[in-house]
């Protein structure tokens, strides 16, 4: 069996050139068909990618609009709350002033009466 191992080179050389495969007639046409199919797949892929990107952009912009609306509403609410607080504190201040003035008037009246 050692002979088999030593004859590897000869064996391989005997395989070489012992056959010559020929491509079929439709070989070249099949290549062009595959190239065109690859191209159209590539174009479909590009179109799909563009559509996907547009959808993502639309989604992102709608999310941005929703968030900014929410922020605006919160801002408006906080502004109106502040106004309410301001009005309330102004009212209470003026009431307080009125009370103080009333008290002052009474004191003046009382002192006049005692005189």
């Amino acid at each position: 069996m050692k002979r088999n191992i030593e004859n590897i080179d000869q064996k391989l050389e005997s395989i070489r050139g012992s056959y010559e495969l020929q491509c079929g007639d439709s070989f070249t046409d099949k290549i062009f068909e595959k190239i065109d199919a690859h191209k159209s797949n590539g174009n479909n892929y590009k179109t799909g990618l563009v559509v996907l990107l547009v959808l993502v952009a639309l989604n992102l912009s709608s999310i941005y609009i929703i968030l900014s609306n929410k922020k605006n509403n919160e801002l408006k609410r906080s502004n109106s709350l502040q106004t309410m607080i301001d009005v309330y504190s102004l009212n209470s201040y003026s009431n307080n002033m009125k009370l103080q003035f009333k008290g002052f008037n009474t004191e003046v009246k009382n002192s006049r009466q005692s005189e």
Partner: protein
Amino acid sequence: MKNKPDWITKLKLGDRDTFREFVEEYKNKVLNTCYNFVRNVHDAEDVSQEVFIEIFNSIHKFKNNSQIGTWVYRITVSKCLDFLRKKNQKKRKVQILSIFGIKDFEHEIESQAPQTPAEILESDDQTQIILSQIGKLPDNQRAALTLNKLENLSIREIAEILQTSETAVESLLQRAKANLKKKLSKIFDS
């Protein structure tokens, strides 16, 4: 084969008629090289078509400082090795599936495919064993041995195709032969 200067320019412009001429010129050479790697005519034809599609798509990467033939060989070898890697992965998957009693019908059909004259020639037991053992060598050793012994290319040509030095190719060939002898002695001695 020498580069035809206007061919390359036209190919780079995507000229279909020139590409058709180019395919006609190289198709049998590429088919036979693929067959020397994959050892199945149908697979060799499929891989050859993939080679030409790759050439059509990446011709702009070709630099005129090398021979177009060498570049074609480089793409062919790389496509063949890719194909064999995928085929081996598929085989492993089938083996795993068979452990669980699941049959892969695609693989069954492939194994029943009719033999071509070239395949019948290989039905000689010894040749079959040698070729099957070459298939088990590491990719670079397998490529070097196939190109040298079956394609009859010189060390310099193989070095250009594999993009390595001539010394590296010589050492690849020596290791490939040593490995092959080891594998064959195990089979023949048992």
